[in-house]
């Protein structure tokens, strides 16, 4: 991922936070993490509830990066 250009005008933030945006890619594209049926949750096999879980997780991470970079 290319680094954002420094624009100088605002308060700077810790660029390491941007790495948070990489996590959904790692955790959703590495299939051995979750292509399994157990543990099940409310009748949902792991493969399915894990994906649903990542919807809010990813949004929270992006939201956090929005907070620290604005």
């Amino acid at each position, binding site marked *: 991922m290319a680094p954002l250009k420094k*624009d100088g005008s605002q308060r700077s933030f810790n660029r390491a936070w941007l790495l948070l*945006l990489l996590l959904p890619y790692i955790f959703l594209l590495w299939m051995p993490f979750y292509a399994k049926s157990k543990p099940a949750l409310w*009748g949902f096999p792991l493969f399915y509830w894990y994906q649903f879980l990542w919807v809010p997780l990813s949004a929270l991470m992006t939201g956090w990066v929005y907070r620290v970079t604005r």
Partner: protein
Amino acid sequence: MAHELNWTATAVFVFFMALVAVVGLFAGRWRRGDLGEIEEWGLAGRRFGTIVTWFLVGGDFYTAYTLIAVPALVYGAGAIGFFALPYTIIVYPFVFLVMPRLWRVSRRHNYITLADFTHGRYGSHWLALAVAVTGILATIPYIALQLVGIQVSIAALGFHGSSWSSDVPLIIAFLILAGFDYTSGLRGPASISFIKGVMVYAVVLVAVIWVPWKLGGYAHVFQVASHVLASRSTRIPLILPRRQFVPFATLALGSALAAFLYPHLVTSILSASSGRVIRRNAVLLPAFTFLLGLIALLGFVAIAAGVHVGRPDDVVPAMFQQLFPPWFSGFCFAAIAVGALVPAAIMSIACGNLFTRNIYRQYISRDLNPRQESTIAKLVSLLVKFGALAFVLFGNPTYAINLQLLGGIWILQTLPVAVFGLFTRWFHRRALFIGWAVGMIVGSGMAWAEQMRTAVYPLKLLGVTFSSYAAIDALVINMAVAAALTPLLNAIGVDAGSDETVPSDYAIEPEEAGRAEGIAGAAPVSEGAS
């Protein structure tokens, strides 16, 4: 039951289509601007705040065809159909990082299209033409698929048969679309996207809560689905098998990287009132992804409910018809049709913008005033829609599906030009052009070869798997060519072209950052009015 007209459902359907027609036609008065100018007609004056953008991009990205095709794929092919969920999750970090930059530079230089940016950044009208043509070619079959979505929902009302009269409702829906697009521009689909959002949410919440409850809970749904999938001749397991790991992941990644390069999504993004609106929406839009996940589950619900259809695309309408009372199934079909009108409208507007700005103005008549630009864009958007309608009425819908798959491969080949271009000017414009051309040829060739192979499978949609894998493969080759040729072309001293943008064009404006402090939490709905 499917062979006679369902009057209650039809009445509900007609009511909502009429509502949409009225709202769409009057939308031009909303935050009134001079619709004779392309920036007003084609981008609604770049003044949409967080909430409007949320509905607009949501209505634009989660198309009606998605609502039909994703459950159909899950119904027919099982776990692989769920790639749509990771796809629409990982798309947003990408949107967050990339799209505000595109918005800022486009605002400063009055770019209307991605090809406008390409032209300004690389000083190359050929590269801009490549981006424009790729965008238009990828979008037209996509419009056709939206019309297929309308067709499927109309057929479910009972307008069946081979006679031409069964096409009349589709033509009426098409005229509504053409009418509000022409008169209201982007404000049309933007206002209808509110209706779409509410309707689709209502349908999905009812379907995913009420139906499994009626069928005995999700544990039961998964159990039955697992059983039925395993007993089919294809013997698909409920959990993604190892051999589908790579197709699943590459399909999700390729789709996520390609999505916001489509002209209709670029149009929605550029109509936002600030880069901050886009960044906020990258946080808020996953609410629609959650909805899409629930919609994907409907594929398993349909299996558990014992729905049998000849064509997978009919799964969702057939299930609605089987499980709901007529008035609510009519509402559901209307939601699908309205859901098709929003993206179809934006897609044709985006094609109109591209053709006008990057083909007509460049190659046919250079001195166009904004008024002429707007007129041409309106006419082209009409023409594009008629092309898509002809496709649906006289062609085989399978062609539209195959072309749309190809379109996904093609559009991804513009990523190095567009996305790398937003961050660096390191790549040589000719290297990018050659990379694009190689990627287009390789990707199309691979899809062509794999289309033959997918014929082995009972489901044509299974071809999606391999096609998108081809998109990623072609992209890697495309990037390798561009990276290898760049130093070479620089070494022989080939002109690298001009660049009318400067680094500060892409940076967050102080006012944008300042505003964030001032009215945090408030939706800047009317800011940026010009």
